[in-house]
């Protein structure tokens, strides 16, 4: 369907997503990144939750670099504008209005597609760069991620801006340059454009859920999205034992593999609260995330 073809040999891109927020995406993404690095695979961990990026709180790069994400925003040269209205008519987003004798561009509605500039005959429209966010990246080395290391790339949307997908795409482009054996995408919650930008073209989709009716409801939405996008998927049940919803029965009925179970354990929440890594600070952490890594690799190989 897309230009995207089979994954590069031996390279794998894993997206971590969920419908519901707060199910444990960051927990899974950061610990899985460490597990993969320790297994000998160089990792790029991309925080695609541009609204609320938290991966770097757990895996802080030593000397991060940053680069702004800019979009082209139309500007009007009033001296050249004939008020013909072609730009307003062509804009699919209602981002251009003509008030009195002025063409007004609403940046928060504009998708920066350039259609208006193209139809402006008098050449009164041009574009200037406008900042909407930032991509930060750097390596987390040392014993924590030895031997292979983790590069952490963070997408951060500027407060008050709305173009999270643009910032997410920029972060993923930055990570693609690293070309690591394993790329882990920590996606936004939900099922809208931000989540799509985070999981698009992944080889494997890991959906993190909790066994409550809410987690269950939102998991079904995320499964539908993943299937629509044609990405092989599996489920991680977090806080296993805390709720009454039978995620296992659902997954069995749907033929969805359960990749890992992380039990409902106050100690996990405490480690996470203080910015720690469960893989090191919980006695079962290494087994959970080592097991998840193997399950993810298996799922990727099955589908390849």
């Amino acid at each position, binding site marked *: 369907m897309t230009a995207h073809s089979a994954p590069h040999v031996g390279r794998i891109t894993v997206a971590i997503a969920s419908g519901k*927020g707060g199910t444990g995406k960051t927990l899974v993404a950061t610990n899985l990144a460490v597990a993969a690095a320790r297994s000998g695979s160089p990792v790029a961990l991309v925080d695609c939750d541009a609204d609320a990026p938290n991966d770097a709180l757990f895996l802080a790069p030593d000397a991060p670099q940053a680069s702004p994400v800019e979009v082209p925003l139309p500007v009007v040269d009033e001296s050249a504008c004939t008020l013909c209205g072609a730009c307003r008519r062509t804009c699919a987003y209602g981002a251009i209005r003509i008030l009195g004798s002025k063409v007004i561009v609403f940046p928060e509605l504009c998708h920066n597609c350039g259609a208006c500039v193209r139809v402006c005959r008098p050449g009164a429209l041009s574009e200037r760069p406008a900042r909407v966010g930032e991509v930060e990246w750097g390596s987390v080395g040392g014993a924590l991620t030895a031997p292979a290391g983790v590069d952490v790339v963070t997408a951060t949307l500027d407060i008050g801006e*709305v173009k999270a997908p643009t910032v997410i795409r920029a972060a993923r482009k930055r990570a693609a340059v690293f070309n690591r054996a394993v790329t882990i995408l920590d996606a936004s919650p939900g099922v809208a454009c931000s989540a799509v930008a985070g999981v698009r073209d992944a080889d494997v989709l890991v959906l993190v859920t909790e066994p409550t009716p809410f987690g269950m409801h939102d998991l079904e939405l995320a499964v539908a999205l993943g299937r629509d996008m044609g990405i092989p998927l599996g489920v991680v049940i977090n806080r296993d034992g*805390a709720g009454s919803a039978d995620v296992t029965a659902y997954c069995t009925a749907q033929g969805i593999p359960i990749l890992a179970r992380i039990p409902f354990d106050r100690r996990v929440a405490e480690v996470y609260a203080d910015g720690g890594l469960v893989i090191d600070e919980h006695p079962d952490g290494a087994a959970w995330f080592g097991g998840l890594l193997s399950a993810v690799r298996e799922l990727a190989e099955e589908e390849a």
Partner: protein
Amino acid sequence: MRRVVFASGKGGTGKTTFTAITARLAAEDGPLVLADCDVEAANLPIALRATVTGSEPFAGGSKAVIDADACRGCGACQPVCRFEAIAADEDFWRTRAFVIDPWACEGCGACVPACPYDAITMEQSRAGEVHTAETVIGPMAFGQLVAGEDLSGKLVTEVRTRADAIGVEHGIDRMWIDGPPGVGCPAIAALTGTDLVMAVTEPTLSGEHDLMRLVTLARRFDLPVAVVLNKADLSASGARRIRERMAAEGLDLVAEVPFDAELAALPERLARGEEFAFPDTPGMDGVRATAAWLAERMGAGS
């Protein structure tokens, strides 16, 4: 209409739990309207077993479609697309036709006039639904976005409009809004035009980081923010950081609610059809304190 929106930045901090229980307590003083503005994962209608009484389709934007028979494969459309949604796929050698990736297309239509063979048209997509519902607490509006659509902010605005209309219809002047996670377009649409942002946070590094992003956003809109610290006993150092931060920022820390398994399970029990029965626990005391504080701000309702 006075409106309070429960928000958090980070997901899973307890927004829906606090919305549902404080609304239930507030309803004892007078009527209110509910709105679930998380249109990507609406959970308040599940917790309150909402009965849908009316639904309206939410027309989304459109997506470009290339007619493979009309396309000559010239590629004139491709450089025009800034979303990298136009590609020659693996069948191009046979079809000589470009294809649109609907997951990438943002529906701008720039490619349509670029095609010399008129092979590209725009097709309307159904982006979701806005529902009106009844609950044990009061009338509710909520929405559901079709997975993969990119208009969640616009749908949130539609839900807000519906909730306002319900208020007018029933003569109700208080609204409890369950907000979406994040600070992007759906969060902005949920916060706009409210009177109070009730931030539900947790004593985690992530919770604090995302709370401060929410506070910055709320201040951008000149909205007052009050904070509830949920699961307060999860981390002593985390709770201390939040307290210090709130004091430094001059923000009201309305209540500290210890982790409480019974309280956390309440929405789930409600979803299974049990009656509202509040646990007699320290966690519930914190929620009652929050509700009492809100009652002063929001009034009794009419």
